[in-house]
């Protein structure tokens, strides 16, 4: 069992803020890239952590031992993201104008990247973000998405090709 899992098993309330600190930035920015909306990404990040906390409260020793924390948290996040998307698709669709005023101005061309990622299909977008923005390994992505490793690799490959094409056109 890794150090953080041991700490969580010993005292969840005390150790959980460390989970938020370590996983939070990449979780937020990964979701931010996947959904293209800062507010929705914040909501999803918060809800993911709250669900993770509640689930950990019911864990026994063995589940803590088997826990692969980052992949597990992303499983929760992706499920929530799917439900959000489903809820959104039932509502009438408008052209959304996102307020990017809250974003860090030092970060490069957010809007251009939103447009590029939006052009990928969902599996490619998820796989590319998890691999190259979040930095997960192929095995972890396979666990989080429930897709075979070979398929994940192919999604990443095709997704990167499309992003490259779009970047060349933009530049």
């Amino acid at each position: 069992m890794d150090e953080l899992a041991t700490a969580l098993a010993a005292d969840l309330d005390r150790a959980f803020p460390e989970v938020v600190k370590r996983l939070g930035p990449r979780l937020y920015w990964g979701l931010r890239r996947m959904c293209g909306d800062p507010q929705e990404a914040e909501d999803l990040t918060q809800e993911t952590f709250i669900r993770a906390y509640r689930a950990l409260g019911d864990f026994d020793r063995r589940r803590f031992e088997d826990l692969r924390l980052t992949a597990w948290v992303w499983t929760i996040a992706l499920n929530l993201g799917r439900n959000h998307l489903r809820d959104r698709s039932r509502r009438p669709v408008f052209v959304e104008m996102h307020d990017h005023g809250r974003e860090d101005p030092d970060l490069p061309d957010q809007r251009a990247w939103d447009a590029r990622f939006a052009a990928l299909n969902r599996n490619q977008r998820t796989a590319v973000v998890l691999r190259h923005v979040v930095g997960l390994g192929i095995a972890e992505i396979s666990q989080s998405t429930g897709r075979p490793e070979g398929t994940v690799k192919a999604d990443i490959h095709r997704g990167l090709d499309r992003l490259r094409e779009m970047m060349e056109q933009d530049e």
Partner: protein
Amino acid sequence: MNIEQRLQDLTGPLPDGLSEGVALGTGIADGYDFYESPVGEVAVTFNPRGVSSLSLASHDFETYFAHRYGRRLIRAKAPSAWAEQIPAAIEAGTPGRLPVDLSPVTPFQTRILRIAATIPKGEVRPYGWLAREAERPGAARAVGSTMARNPIPLIIPCHRVVRSDGTIGAYSLGGPHIKWELLTYEGADPGHLEDLAEHQVRVQGNASTHIFCHPTCRAIRRSKPGNVVDFKSGRAAEEAGFRACRLCRP
């Protein structure tokens, strides 16, 4: 720069307030905000289970809270569903539909506090009455210590609970003078209650209806002054042929 490197650079820090939002949403920390009350500004804390404490804003409530509950506090807005219920509960002196988190006290203490919350505004009840209502007639002292540990004074109106001898007694929210101030504000006239206590008047009866009440019960206070008879105990009233009021169950 190749695309993989550019994608790696697309992350940044966590947005402001997000880790606080997680701490509040999980209940690892409680939120707090300030509200007006009849005795000045108060700090109310809340978590996903409900309102968890109330203190005078002038008091060092953050240190006290961390010490007593072992959680930290974050300045926050109350959940929107409770935003109007909190000031209403403070004004009414009862939770109403506002959820309260009494998890730090024992089940017996929770029962006592729930009973205290039923005492109407402008009325008071002695410790012994709460003990009897909780079907623990011998537990008057335990009622007293429960009141001292009430996490949510004003909203759980322990100021409406007086000592078994009828005197006003202590108050955890800033001392007995605050209790006097509150009872006066609610129309219970603590000076008059202390007078009755001094003369050992515990219940009062109406000579025309032959019903006896706690001295602050709305039924006896509606009686003509000439009809009011003082008794030292409920038993003395019963022996004189009076029956107990069904509203205040003395």
